[in-house]
């Protein structure tokens, strides 16, 4: 089932175009409030889009004519709040098969509950479940409906680390053959679950492509940030990237001289030095000024105007916004055209 969707929701300033190949998983990567959930809800028909064109396997579900009602689309939404119904867990999972007129809905539901590891919860009510259990039940309910396309809205939001990690592993197996869109703000989810990635910023898709491509070779600083990478961009000159400030970063490969190119690397791979120009010839040094300091657990992300580095809190403690620093980037990273 190949899904092509273009949805516009004017009230929430969302105008997104998404494509998922048959059996593939697309990660819709963006920060909170970027319109990911709205885009999914519009595709599922939970919110009414201002304009939309949704084509599933060549059949236009929403477009010029009368839209196909949500219940006939075969597009199931797994909502962030689980939205379990006031009935037993088994009845929740049997809801889709029963609506489809199946007679063996209880067996189907039992099978799916076992697959998500919740067979022993069949008789419970939604209020008697932990957050992780409720999410598993909601996943079983969504898959038991045999969706042509499954939309998962932040499937790990609001879960503790342990539950999130076990559900992530489970979903990777369950989604193998399902056409799915997963929204997330976490590059790790995109890495582990997705074949393709679309990056969303303020209601628009700003970058899309194969996961490996978008996550390791982002084309915009925004996409790089979402992919947890630093984008060092400049102009190719004689085997090196020349940055706007004049600093040179020797790279391997990349486009021809005079073309725009970039390297991307994790912020933890960037070295930070305060004070005089460093002597270490193994790294290419880029002079910069601190624009922001973001605490992240044990480390602090030091954001400059060109480069970002994750450094130990003791180092960052001596820094203020505006402080002059040197960012050290390894030489010879593979460059790509922008």
């Amino acid at each position: 089932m190949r899904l092509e969707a273009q949805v516009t929701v004017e009230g929430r300033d969302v105008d997104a175009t998404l494509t998922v190949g048959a059996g593939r998983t697309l990660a819709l990567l963006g920060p909170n409030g970027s319109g990911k959930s709205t885009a999914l809800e519009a595709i599922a028909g939970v919110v009414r889009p201002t304009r939309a064109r949704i084509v599933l396997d060549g059949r236009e579900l929403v477009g010029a004519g009368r839209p196909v009602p949500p219940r006939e689309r075969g597009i199931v939404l797994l909502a962030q709040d689980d939205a379990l119904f006031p009935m037993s867990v088994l009845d929740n999972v049997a809801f889709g098969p029963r609506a489809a007129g199946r007679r063996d809905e209880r067996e189907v539901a039992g099978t799916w509950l076992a697959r998500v590891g919740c067979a022993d919860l069949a008789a419970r009510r939604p209020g008697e479940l932990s957050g992780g259990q409720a999410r598993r039940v909601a996943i079983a309910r969504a898959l038991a409906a045999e969706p042509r396309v499954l939309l998962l809205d932040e499937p790990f939001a609001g879960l503790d680390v342990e539950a999130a990690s076990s559900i992530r592993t489970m979903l990777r197996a369950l989604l193998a053959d399902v056409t799915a869109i997963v929204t997330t703000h976490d590059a790790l989810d995109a890495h582990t679950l997705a074949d393709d990635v679309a990056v969303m910023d303020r209601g628009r898709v700003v970058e899309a492509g194969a996961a490996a491509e978008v996550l390791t070779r982002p084309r915009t600083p925004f996409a790089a940030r979402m992919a947890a990478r630093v984008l060092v961009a400049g102009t190719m000159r004689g085997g090196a990237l020349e940055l706007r400030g004049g600093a040179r970063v020797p790279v391997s490969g990349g486009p021809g001289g005079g073309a725009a190119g970039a390297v991307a690397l994790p912020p933890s791979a960037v070295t930070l030095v305060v004070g005089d120009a460093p002597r270490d010839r193994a790294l290419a040094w880029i002079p910069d000024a601190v624009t922001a300091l973001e605490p992240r657990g044990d480390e602090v992300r030091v954001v400059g105007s060109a480069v970002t580095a994750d450094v130990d809190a003791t180092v960052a403690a001596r820094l203020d916004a505006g402080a002059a620093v040197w960012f050290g980037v390894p030489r010879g990273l593979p460059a790509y055209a922008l």
Partner: protein
Amino acid sequence: MTGPRWLVPLAVAGALLVALPLVGLLARASWGEMWSLITATASLEALALSLRTSLVATALVLVLGVPLGFALHALQGRVRAVARAVLLAPLVLPPVVGGLALLYAFGRRGLLGGPLEDAGVSIAYTTVAVVLAQAFVAMPFMVVSVESALATHGSRREAIAATLGASRTRILARVTLPALGPALATGTVLAFARALGEFGATLTFAGSLAGVTRTTPLEIYLARETDPDAAVALSIVLLVVAVTVVAVAYRPVAGRAVR
């Protein structure tokens, strides 16, 4: 939350205002003859009629009031405010006015009653009239319960149920109505209690024909001069039923989880 101390005497006065008449009724009862008073033919007839008509009226209120609550919820803005005011009128209208209104709608020369009369169907002064009067005054309780429950419930689960392939009827039956359960219970209980106690509209629209339209409140009103002991005995029956029904089934809707 605890209020300031000066609320206490006012609360006590309020409690006395409500409780003292009830105590007075209980004090006046001739407990020794209670059973024989209640099982007297006229009393039993009235009680049986009250029970029958109130149950039918409550069923009618459920069947019509729930859709009415949904419809009211679906309306917008000023239209909804006007519709709500009209639908809730029986709640604040003097019952005798309601009875008069029913008479001019369903009576022999009423809007609908006239044509019905020509077709050989007469409603006024029959048991059907009793049920109509009771449903008329009890309907607002169900409409209000359903409408306010829908307002707090939202429609998200319903939308998700639709993506799972469910029809509107299935969503109503399996998702919405179960979530409205507490509200429906409250509406039903209040409607039943109100129907059981109906007096003014019944007397005006249905009259007071023994065994046909003379419900318990009417019997009490008639007996209070001729046989005050019987009147008090029947009153206590209604009192016990009302208090029991409310204590068992009525819970404020707000603050209860939908899950």
